[in-house]
């Protein structure tokens, strides 16, 4: 096509998805416009705040810097894909129960980044939590509660001791 638009096919939260994107569009624009997924949102637009975090082929990624055409052939997960029906993911439950947010704008990014952290380091120290989540900014400064929530989620995810 003369305008460079391209049909992309990818897996979105476990299901096949396809849409038509322009070369300059980023992944967040496309997820919001074509799939009505508004969990990941653009805040700084520069990859500095983590609000636009999505998981691309298993890696937490700043969606605002990820050009949509490159999503072709990938597997993408958003925060909307975490819950199973009405059953929340343990990380989502931990954030709710520990009041680990105030306005909630940054929360989807924190939750996805926490999942990546706990997948890699199941029982992180407070320092490891701080460092891993340091690329996610929370203007409401719910950081103390977020640490508590991450610890709680780590406990919930730990395999039951025999």
């Amino acid at each position: 096509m003369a305008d460079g638009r391209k049909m992309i096919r990818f897996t979105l939260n476990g299901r096949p998805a396809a849409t038509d994107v322009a070369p300059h569009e980023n992944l967040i624009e496309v997820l919001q416009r074509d799939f009505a997924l508004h969990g990941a949102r653009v805040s700084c637009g520069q990859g500095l705040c983590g609000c636009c975090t999505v998981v691309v082929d298993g890696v937490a990624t700043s969606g605002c810097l990820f050009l949509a055409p490159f999503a072709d052939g990938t597997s993408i997960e958003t925060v909307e894909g975490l819950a199973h029906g009405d059953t929340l993911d343990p990380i989502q439950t931990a954030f709710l129960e520990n009041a680990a947010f105030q306005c909630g704008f940054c929360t989807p990014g924190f939750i996805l980044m926490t999942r990546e952290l706990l997948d890699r380091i199941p029982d992180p120290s407070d320092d490891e939590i701080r460092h891993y989540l340091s690329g996610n900014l929370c203007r409401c400064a719910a950081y103390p509660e977020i640490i508590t929530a991450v610890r709680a989620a780590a406990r919930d995810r730990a395999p039951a001791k025999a």
Partner: protein
Amino acid sequence: MTTGQSSNVTPFWMIGATAVEISVDTETGRITVDRCVTAGDVGRAINPAIVTAQLNSAAIMAIGASISEVMVFERGQIVNASLADYKIPSFLDIPRDITAELIEEPHPNAPYGAKGVGESGSFGPAPAIANALADATGVRVYEMPLLPERVLRALRAAAGAPLEAE
């Protein structure tokens, strides 16, 4: 009242107090807030967890305003309008030890004795940090925020080895 204003200009006043422990890097002027304790007069804390969060987060926001957040203008234009250049606190900038104390005195003129607490933790950090800086180094800085460059200039001036003018 003889202020000429209403005798009931606000439903309540917010009252808070903050104490901090800081470290000062005397080679760079950078301040790190290691510990922060905030007390708030909160009326009745209907949900103590959320009231605690409000006090702590207000303190963190005020810490950012006190040591790192500054809008830079050139010819009327903001030249640091991005999160790369306008530094709000991240996980690495908050005190390792941060606690809040709720002082409960139910307010007679408010629902269930509660009061707004969103700002009660935000008054104290700036003077507390400036006072801690003076206590630690003997140097008073009268301009906010306490950016590393500003603190370093003050430290060097006090040591008789001032940096070149900007």
